């Protein structure tokens, strides 16, 4: 009995709820992380090599989706995001496989990472209808006014996903951006993009509207500057600048200054960028980094 020839998956971009190839027609080889047993890295797949135009299209999709996503009720966003965790659980096997291959983990460790990633998604999803109460509130102004401050999403966020932590790290940067009603363009880990596409498939098969999360795979150094300088991007998360080949996060921040993007700098101190430990318990800082505070006044009279 001959072994079955398996049906391989094509890893494409995820833009506006669809899975296009790169407009550039390019792709690049994704290799498994070296585990020490193999001399030559194992070929995993060809990933789409996203271009600046793909990034541009992704921004257009994100901008288009943003008002609707922000306008959904918080309860609804919470449920939609929770649903993503359900789908991730259902696709657990593939996530484990891709994380294991991408990061060179043991099966047990890969299981643990996927579990943590799903749990993290659930943790953030639960914030959807709570953060406004924690972060907003009534201001006791000295006058006959009702004065309230509430957080709002900043808009479209470009996210440089962590280079090393291909799923847990990815979830840890994407979920806090979208839970508040932002939409995003994620530049996946350059060398470990496959879990990002797996996550995109989870998003596509859950109820997350197309365009809320857009995933571009490719060379960070090639695409990131276009996102950093893009005038229709409101904020940028530079977490993935750590260990990205040919990327100086200061240059990206400089470009981001042109339209005063909100910039979440990479971890580390001084010019050095260090990828954070995503096993650590998160706080609200990644959520608040992409919020605006809106204060509304109204007189109180008869």
């Amino acid at each position, binding site marked *: 009995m001959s072994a079955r020839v398996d049906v391989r998956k094509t890893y494409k971009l995820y833009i506006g709820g669809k899975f296009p190839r790169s407009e550039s027609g390019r792709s690049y080889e994704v290799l498994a992380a070296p585990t020490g047993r193999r001399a030559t890295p194992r070929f995993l797949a060809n990933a789409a090599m996203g271009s600046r135009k793909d990034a541009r299209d992704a921004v257009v999709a994100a901008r288009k989706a943003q008002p609707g996503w922000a306008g959904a009720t918080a309860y609804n966003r919470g449920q939609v995001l929770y649903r993503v965790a359900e789908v991730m659980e259902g696709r657990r096997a593939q996530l484990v496989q891709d994380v294991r291959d991408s990061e060179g983990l043991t099966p047990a460790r890969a299981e643990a990472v996927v579990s943590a990633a799903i749990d993290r998604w659930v943790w953030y999803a639960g914030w959807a209808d709570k953060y406004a109460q924690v972060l907003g509130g009534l201001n006791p102004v000295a006058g*006959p006014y009702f004065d309230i401050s509430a957080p709002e999403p900043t808009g479209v966020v470009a996210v440089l996903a962590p280079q090393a932590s291909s799923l847990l790290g990815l979830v840890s940067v994407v979920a806090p951006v979208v839970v508040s009603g932002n939409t995003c363009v994620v530049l996946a880990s350059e060398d470990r993009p496959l879990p990002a596409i797996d996550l995109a498939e989870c998003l596509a098969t859950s109820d997350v509207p197309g365009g809320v999360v857009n995933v571009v795979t490719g060379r960070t150094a090639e695409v990131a500057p276009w996102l950093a300088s893009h005038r229709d991007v409101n904020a940028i998360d530079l977490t993935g600048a750590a260990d990205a080949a040919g990327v100086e996060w200061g240059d990206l921040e400089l470009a981001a200054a042109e339209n005063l993007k909100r910039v979440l700098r990479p971890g580390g101190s001084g010019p050095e960028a260090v990828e954070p430990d995503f096993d650590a318990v998160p706080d609200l800082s990644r959520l608040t980094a992409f919020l605006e505070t809106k204060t509304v006044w109204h*007189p*109180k009279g008869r």
Partner: protein
Amino acid sequence: MCHPGGPRVVRWCPRPTVTRPHRPPYTPGVSTSTEVDPTTRARDILGVSRLTNSALTGWLHGLPGVDQVGCEARAAALSTRSVKTSSKAWAIDTAISMIDLTTLEGADTPGKVRGLATRALVPDPSDPSTPSPAAVCVYGDMVPFAREVIGERDVRIAAVATAFPSGRASRAVKLADTRDAVQNGADEIDMVIDRGAFLAGDYLSVFREIAETKEACGDARLKVIMETGELVTYDNVRRASWLSMLAGGDFIKTSTGKISPAATLPVTLVMLEAVRDWRDATGEQVGVKPAGGIRTSKDAIKFLVTVNEVAGEDWLSNEWFRFGASSLLNDLLLQRQKMTTGAYSGADYVADDAPSGY
């Protein structure tokens, strides 16, 4: 424009009862006379074929709202105007000339009313250049005693009517009250509206009562007291102002003085906006009279500033603006003396025939 008159020599010489003032009433720059009947005129203004309560309701409720906080902030801002030296002197004399010097007590006697009237003629015996108040304001049955003193001189006699202050009586009684006061020689009638009817939404009834009272006034000018302290909201004050003007009131007046709050600056501000907008809409000028609670010169000047900056200088005379007050005159006289002598004055230097505290 009414600049307070020059020196006025007045001698106290009581006369026999005068039944009617035969001096023609004011000849305003803009006509307020309503030669057509008020209902026809109201139909024209509203653009309806029949004046119904629902037509009035639609019209009044279509007026722009008043935001309380913004309105009060504007009044407070106007209150910060600093009126000094020559402008203060002018303002004090103007304010004196705008007073309806008032006594409206159950305990009013002929003696008290005569004293009040005398005071109106000679507000400050030490300075004959002091202008007289515009009018004395008394109950209708007291008009003859005021007339005894004032005679034909240039101080008007105003009488409250229409079952003042509550307005709770039948229409017939209210109209009889009005005719009686006019008969007694009143130049001006201060009526009260039926606040109950207004608050119940029966605008047509309020309209008719004002219109009929106006008719009963004959040549006397009609001031319509809305009792804003009972209407409570500025939206109501605005609606009552427009309703009163529509029905033919010559003045709109805040209060009876029997209900607190009475004449606040923001209420007066809303009324000044109403008369300004009414003139824009119809070409007719209507006067404003805040009454009750205005006791100091400082307060009075704030009202004048508000008149000046909201309605405009066309209202800066006693033809178009009055203060209903009793003790205000004393303070204005004290301030006037201070400006004349340079020293602060005291109550002992102001002759008062009708001290309010008995």
